[in-house]
């Protein structure tokens, strides 16, 4: 069996409760980029469970960091979550959504992982590279098409904002 990693993506987050949602979206959109949509339900459940365990381990007011990592390896997808807290170990179920979860200590804390088989006898090398495309919302398209300066009200707001709140268009 070839255990060489052929694709990897990861995301480091503050271990607060909302990290569970952000991690889920990261798993979901990464797998869609890799054309592995059939794995989304199981992988997101597994990822949510492991991230929630890290958040619970952090406790209120003590949020550290965690890293969510997806690796394509051999004929499987490995979902990993690293907890960077050394003092205590996250508590996870041994199996979630039909997938076994392993827990190993690292020099920086704990790594949880689960390997999900790729669908339809695929292997890691047959997963297509992601095709990154810019996606714009209709509202964003409208703004992009509209030359700045046309709407004096918008310009006034932007000019006012230069000395005030952060400009979220930059």
């Amino acid at each position: 069996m070839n255990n060489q990693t052929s694709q990897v993506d990861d995301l480091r987050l503050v271990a607060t409760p909302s990290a569970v949602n952000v991690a889920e979206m990261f798993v979901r959109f990464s797998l869609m980029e890799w054309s592995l949509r059939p794995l989304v339900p199981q992988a997101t459940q597994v990822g949510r469970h492991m991230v929630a365990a890290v958040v619970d381990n952090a406790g209120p007011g003590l949020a550290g960091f965690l890293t969510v990592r997806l690796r394509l390896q051999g004929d499987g997808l490995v979902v990993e979550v690293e907890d960077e807290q050394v003092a205590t170990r996250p508590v996870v179920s041994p199996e979630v959504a039909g997938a076994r979860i392993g827990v190993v200590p690292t020099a920086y804390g704990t790594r949880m992982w689960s390997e999900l088989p790729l669908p339809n006898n695929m292997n890691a090398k047959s997963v297509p590279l992601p095709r990154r495309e810019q996606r714009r919302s209709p509202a964003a398209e409208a703004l992009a098409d509209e030359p700045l300066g046309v709407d004096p009200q918008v310009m006034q707001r932007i000019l006012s904002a230069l000395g005030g709140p952060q400009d979220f268009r930059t």
Partner: protein
Amino acid sequence: MNVDPDSLTARGLTRYVDSIAAALVVPPHAEHHEVSELSNAYLALYRRSPAFPELDLMLLWDERHGWSVALETAPTEGPAVLAYLGGDVLAEADEVHRFVRDVIDGKCPGQPDPPPALDDEQAEELVWRLAARAEDGLAA
């Protein structure tokens, strides 16, 4: 929220959403809100999260749950809420501004699940609070 679109409450909602849009420097054509059975608002944000560089962010509000930040996805892909602000459904503009900034900065603020919906008494209070905002605007 069963109120007349020309009522003080409806005008108060407009004033409130406009104040949030102004704090985030969202121009009028990137903002939408409506008074309906479930009144809601949408603001298109023009900064993206480094975690999702290909996807736009939107700031959403509804009268039951208040503010949330979500990824703009295809309608068939289901909700993609990154975080709910929680707390007061009429959070002040600086709090919403800070919430959005922290989401974009990857600090994972707020809460992952929708806050509990307002009960009948709170919903009634919301009608009056929004009307008061319109009156503040009239007085200014």
